[in-house]
């Protein structure tokens, strides 16, 4: 981040892949997966690494919220 300050970090939450093929399973279940994109994260001046990571984590958790809007994000093939 410090070396490439112009890069935008976009939080993306993938819903359902873990249900399609859970860890340790060889069977694939064809559920529909959804990718939800959040707003790009830009480090605040004076924000240290830990603070930024906490903010990034909460941005991702917000996207994982099971509260489904009627028009969710871009559907992905599943």
């Amino acid at each position, binding site marked *: 981040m410090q070396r490439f300050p112009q890069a935008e970090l976009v939080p993306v939450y993938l819903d*359902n892949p*873990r*249900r399609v093929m*859970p*860890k340790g*399973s060889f*069977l*694939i*279940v*064809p*559920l*529909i997966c959804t990718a939800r994109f959040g707003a790009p994260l830009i480090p605040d001046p004076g924000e240290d690494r830990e603070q930024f990571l906490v903010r990034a984590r909460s941005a991702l958790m917000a996207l994982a919220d*099971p*509260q*489904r809007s*009627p028009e969710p994000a871009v*559907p992905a093939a*599943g």
Partner: protein
Amino acid sequence: MIANPVFVTVTACVIAFLALCTAIGFVLARHVSAPAARDTVANLNARIRSWWGIVFVFGAALVFGRVVTLVLFAILSFLAFREFMSLTPTRAGDHRSLFLSFFVVVPVQYLLIGIDWYGLFSIFIPVYIFLILPALSAVAGDTKDFLARNAKLQWGLMLTVFAISHAPALLLLDLSGYRLPNALLLLYLMIVVQISDVFQYVFGKLFGRTRLSPAISPSKTVEGLVGGGLTAVLIGAALYGITPFSPFQAAAMSAVIVIGGFFGGFVLSAIKRDLGVKDWGRMIEGHGGILDRMDSVSFASPLFFHLTRYYFAT
């Protein structure tokens, strides 16, 4: 089928009706200016465009015969079940049950129709799968939400596979005194179900004042239900020529299809509200998912199938 004059006439009527709808949609799009109305008309036209696709796919399946029709319905069940389970929370312990449901239960249910095994067709999911799935889940050892998870899986299969498979199961009935191919009876069921849905929408948009149940479905109105239901019963009665029924029997059967279809949409809407979604998916432009179009079919088909079988099969 393609050479059957009755099939050709009915198909021509459906195409003429769709052409009329397309023309009306085109005129509306040019004359409506209010933003909310424009959205409604845009959605209407998207729905009509999708209808052309649905009619083409379904008509082609009927033309190609029984195997293709069964494969089409198996695919529809598969996709509807996929939409249902994608929105219904399950856990890793359900993985084998889900795999079995998608890749064994769906094909076997339709295969049983294909080989005319009515006895197993009617108990395969409600008896055998009903016992096997919870056994698999129990073996997986995860007891969290055990009852709810198994109930959801069984509900999903009953609605999207068992119930819907009763529509093409009409093909295996041996109907006394019915000289037309059974595929026409399937066509009859689909026409009455969908005409009922379409005219409930049309009457609801034109005259809808009294909401039936705002908590479940904001778009369902008493005016829509009565107008759409009566239109479907009238059309169903007029189509008695493609059924083994008398005109009065056809009207009664259509009434059963309309009531069943209405509750199908109603119950599936209640599930959608419970899950916090508006549509089941985005597969059909303007309509939502496959299950948004098949919800009424899932309730109407078993009723129509069993009444026809009980009263008219040899």
